[in-house]
Structure formats: structure tokens, C-alpha cells
């Protein structure tokens, strides 16, 4: 009787195959929704560390697996994870950089008074408000 050919890969290659590599990509990319979920914490928002952590671990793990098994699954996973790590770094630091404010922002000692309409169309004066107590004046980007 002819011997049946082994149609299945041995277990050790199964462990280094597509499912595990795909999981490493999912793990790495999970860092971004986790960052968004934790964005309420200002240290998270400013540093983005959860996304960096997951992307870095996912990339490092995939690269380690490439060195162990040399399979295309892991090479692709390592490539994808490192690409996303690079894109995230670019987006978080390079694209998010703001121009330096004019000297006034850091040098003003006396707060210039102004009068602007609020959300109800009513005129609000900074001078009148600050006489009632300290005012936290926040400038935000709005719907740009």
C-alpha cells in the first residue's frame, strides 16, 4: 500500500504560521483603540504610550519570530507592525506638531480685555468676568 503523503505541516511550523502572525498584527493594532479609550488621561493623550507599547511589542515579537522561523507569515507581520509603528510615530509627533506661538503668548503679563459673544449671542467681557473671580481662559481649535 502506498504511503499517504503528509498533507499537514508539522506542529512546530503550524505555531509559526499565519494564525499566530495575524494575531500579532491584531495585538499591535489594538494599541490604537486602546489609546483612544484611555485618552481621557492627560498623560496618555500627550505621550500616546499605550499605542506605542502595543505597536512596539507587536513589532518586536514578529521580528523575533522571523529570526526563529523565517516564514513569510512572520515577515509580513513584522513588516506590517513596523510600518504601523512608523506611521503612528509620524502622525503623533511630526504631523501633530504645532507652530510656536507668537512672543505675546509667553510674555504677556497683563491679560488683554475683550468682549465677545457667547453661545447664546450675549456679549461677554473678560474684564467683567475676572472681577468676580479668577478666569481660566481656554483657546481651542474649534471645528477646523
Amino acid at each position, binding site marked *: 500500500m502506498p504511503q499517504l503523503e503528509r498533507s499537514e505541516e508539522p506542529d512546530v511550523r503550524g505555531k509559526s504560521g499565519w494564525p499566530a502572525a495575524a494575531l500579532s498584527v491584531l495585538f499591535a493594532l489594538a494599541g490604537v483603540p486602546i489609546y483612544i479609550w484611555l485618552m481621557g488621561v492627560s498623560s496618555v493623550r500627550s505621550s500616546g504610550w499605550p499605542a506605542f507599547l502595543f505597536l512596539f511589542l507587536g513589532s518586536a515579537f514578529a521580528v523575533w519570530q522571523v529570526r526563529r522561523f523565517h516564514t513569510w507569515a512572520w515577515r509580513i507581520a513584522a513588516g506590517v507592525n513596523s510600518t504601523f509603528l512608523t506611521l503612528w510615530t509620524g502622525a503623533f509627533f511630526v504631523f*501633530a506638531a504645532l507652530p510656536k506661538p*507668537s512672543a505675546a503668548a509667553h510674555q504677556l503679563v497683563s491679560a*488683554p480685555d*475683550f468682549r*465677545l459673544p*457667547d*453661545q447664546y449671542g450675549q456679549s461677554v467681557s473678560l474684564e467683567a468676568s475676572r472681577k468676580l473671580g479668577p478666569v481660566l481662559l481656554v483657546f481651542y481649535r474649534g471645528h477646523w
Partner: protein
Amino acid sequence: MVVSVDSTERSLQTAERYGLTFPLLSDSGREAIRQYGVIHSGSALDGTDIALPAHFLIDTDGRIVWRRVAVRVQDRPDPKEVLKAFGTALGPANK
């Protein structure tokens, strides 16, 4: 109080959406934004100027006693830091 270039209508939408009770001021002429040095030229999608994210704490005498200007889009001061600055501005009797 919070200032942006959003129109009064847009500010009202924002206030209602998030349940904000403090004043959202509309600086469509970019006057206050310019005075405080926080103009971000051409940063809006349509190329107009908007504000840099910035916080200024102003005491009752009109002096700026604490400030933070964002370096990156996502920079915001820790609320604890803001409250601490407020406490100092209110005087030694307050925490």
C-alpha cells in the same frame, strides 16, 4: 471661558452636545486670538486662521498668573495642574 473661531451657532451646538455651562465665546474676527498670541495661521481646512490650544489663568487684577500653550495638537494640561493653579490664584485661604 473658552474661545474659538466657531460661530455662535456652532458653539451652541458644542455646548449642548457636551452639556457645557460655561461661556463658549466666538472670536470670528480672531481678535482675542491675536492679542494672546495664539493664532495658528492657515490651519483650518479652508485655509483660514484658527487658535492654538492654550490655557491662561487670569486673576482678579487682570494678571496672567499661569499659562500653558500646546506644542502638539493633543497636548492638554493635566486637570490637577489647572486646579492647583486656580487654588494659588484664589489665595492662601483656598486649597
